[in-house]
Structures are given as structure tokens and as C-alpha cells.
């Protein structure tokens, strides 16, 4: 009986411990998501009022920097544009956009929190090597297209019709 009680206790501790661990991990991971979002959102709630959001203006070494959130067809001026510092709640971030041939070639972190324990943890999850860009239409010929499945009824009707016409 005594061993049973010990077992029960051990199982309880394990379950509670796992839950707490999960909750902590989940919380921190949820916080990691805005890492990708903050630089992309001019109206980010994480952006402090006294500092412009990273992509609002090119306050760095260039004037009249266009917003990377414009439509993909927008052509940008070549150069490197550093955004303002933005508060992402878990720390301050600052972004640099590199424009080549009128397109966003790269987006880099200028400032990224690593001083606090929690931020370090976020850093380890949110790989800083991940890069962002505004999507751009490509004109190169392709053999195959990957995309979310499109099987709405109207689409299938239209496709069926198109295929029947296409049959030689």
C-alpha cells in the first residue's frame, strides 16, 4: 500500500511538473512568434510610442525610405535602410533592410535582445538566421506549381471545363 502511495505521488509530481514545464515553454514560444511579426507590422502594438516601428521610416542612413510593406510590385531605391528601435515587449529590436535592384534582398537584425535570460531563451528558439522579405512576383517559367489545395466547387468546374478544352 505504501509503495502505491509513493507511486501515486510520483505520478502526480510528474504530471504537474510536465504541465508547468509545458506552460512555461508554451508561453515563451508564444512570445517567440512576434519576433517574425514585429518588423513587418508598422502598427505593431509592441512598438513603443516614442520610437517609430522598425519599418515605418528609414531613419538611418537614407531619406524617404519606402515601407517594405508596400505592395510587392513596388520598386525600392537601392541601399541599406536601418529602421528605428522598436519595443517588442520582450526587448528592443531594430531592423536593417538591404535593397538591391529595387527589391528587398535581405532583412537583418541590427539590435536584438540577448541580455535577459528570457530573451536568450527566445533567441534559441527563434533562429536569428531566418530572413524576411516582401513577396515579389517572379516571371521565370515553371514546370510545376506548389500551393494550397484549391478544390472549391467553382474552381473545379472551371478547371474541368478548361481541361476538356485543352484535350487535343
Amino acid at each position, binding site marked *: 500500500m505504501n509503495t502505491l502511495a509513493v507511486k501515486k505521488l510520483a505520478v502526480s509530481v510528474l504530471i504537474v511538473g510536465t504541465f508547468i514545464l509545458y506552460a512555461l515553454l508554451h508561453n515563451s514560444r508564444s512570445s517567440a512568434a512576434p519576433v*517574425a511579426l514585429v518588423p513587418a507590422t508598422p502598427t505593431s502594438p509592441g512598438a513603443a510610442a516614442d520610437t517609430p516601428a522598425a519599418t515605418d521610416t528609414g531613419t538611418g542612413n537614407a531619406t524617404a525610405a519606402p515601407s517594405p510593406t508596400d505592395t510587392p510590385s513596388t520598386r525600392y531605391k537601392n541601399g541599406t535602410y536601418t529602421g528605428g528601435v522598436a519595443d517588442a515587449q520582450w526587448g528592443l529590436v531594430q531592423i536593417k533592410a538591404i535593397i538591391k535592384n529595387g527589391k528587398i534582398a535581405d532583412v537583418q537584425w541590427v539590435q536584438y535582445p540577448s541580455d535577459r535570460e528570457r530573451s536568450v531563451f527566445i533567441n534559441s528558439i527563434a*533562429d536569428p538566421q531566418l530572413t*524576411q522579405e516582401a*513577396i515579389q512576383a517572379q516571371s521565370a517559367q*515553371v514546370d*510545376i506549381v506548389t500551393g*494550397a489545395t484549391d478544390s472549391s466547387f467553382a474552381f473545379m468546374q472551371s478547371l474541368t471545363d478548361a481541361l476538356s478544352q485543352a484535350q487535343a
Partner: protein
Amino acid sequence: MRETRLLMGMPITVEVRDPRATRDDLAAVFAYFTSVDETFSTYKATSVISRLNRGELALEDCGEEVRTIFALAEQTRRETHGYFDITRDGIRDPSGIVKGWAIHNAARRLREAGYRDFYVDAGGDIAVSGTKDGAPWRVGIRNPLNRQQNVKVLAVTDRGVATSGTAIRGQHIYNPHDPDTPLLDVLSLTVIGPNVYEADRFATAAFAMGQRGIHFIEELPGFEGYLIDARARATSTSGFERYVLRV
């Protein structure tokens, strides 16, 4: 030789470049997809999976394929922290894993028949083998905001490419940990993996993770990903660039 048919509620295209390819070989691939549909379609009342869900069939009587799929689904559920789960409200819908598995099997059959240069594309999830006229196959990533456009062109050989998304069809993936909250942030997530089965199951699970999904793909050895969010921004994994076509 190329042929497209509408099966399993989506266009399926098979192209084989090997000169000795015959119509019969392509027909055999489509026949395989038809048999998979007969077994797994949740839209068909007579399918094995529908009869299982209605309680008319016991799992033991469902045949080897169904048991294989359930085992693979369970394995995927564990590997994705529960983000991949075929059971919702007691109903089992393995569509999320069957598609990639079927494409992978179809490609394997072509390979076993001695073919080298081909692809099998089912609704935008693709098994790519060999080359097209000596160059890698060119795979476009469709713009979820404008389906006439591609936003990336990949150069792919002997890989699987799969995209999960909400763009056109509406919500068909949900977060098992939070089923009632729609996934709106991420429009599409494309995954390149060692084969289409692996790419498809991890694309589906990672999509359900929202913005964090791309980090999940980043952590997977041998996989690369390209995530497009509702702000028309893309986030790619650190090795993704090596698949981007240089023109």
C-alpha cells in the same frame, strides 16, 4: 509524357520525361490514386474510413493500408508535439497524411518501373525525381494572395515539395491545441523535404503552429521552409536559398 486527371477532389498531374514512358504507366499511377481514394475518402460514404467512423468496421478489419496510415499519423502526432492529429470530435480524418503518402507511393512505383525523370503533383504537393532535360525541375511557389503569380521559383531534384495553406479552399487545417481559433496569420507554408510524404506531413503540422511553424521547420534536419503571412511577408529557413532558382 504528361497527363492530368481530377481525382480525390483535386487535379493530379503526372509527367514522365523518360522516352520509353507509356500511357499505361501513367494510367497505373492514376488507378493507384483511385484505389487510395476508395479507401480513405471521407467524402465517400462507401470508403473504408467512412465505414470505420460510422462504427460499421473494426480497425482490425480495415486492411493493412489503413493500419499503416494510422500508425504513421500517430508517429507524426508525437513528432510534432500533438500539432498533427487526425482525430477531431471522435472522427478520424487521415486526409492530412494520406495525400503525401499516396504521392510518395505513386512516385516509388514509377521509380520501381525504371523511370528516372518525372514528377507527381497532387493538388500542389509534389514528388520530384531526376531532371527535366538535364536541368532541375522548376517549381513555382504560388502567391496565396494572387493565384496567377508565383513568388519564388525553386530548382528541385529528387525532393518532395508540399504547401499547406488557407488561401483558396478556406480553413482546412486547425490547431488541435486550440481548435476554435482560425489560423489567419499564416497564408501558406511551403516545405522542401527528402520526399513528399515527409514534406507534406511536416508542412501540415507546422502550418497549425502559426508563425512558429517556420521555426519548427528550421529545427528539422534536411528540411527547408518558406512561410507567407497575411501581410505579404515571407520568412524562410536558413538553408532555403539553396533551392531558389538562379536565372
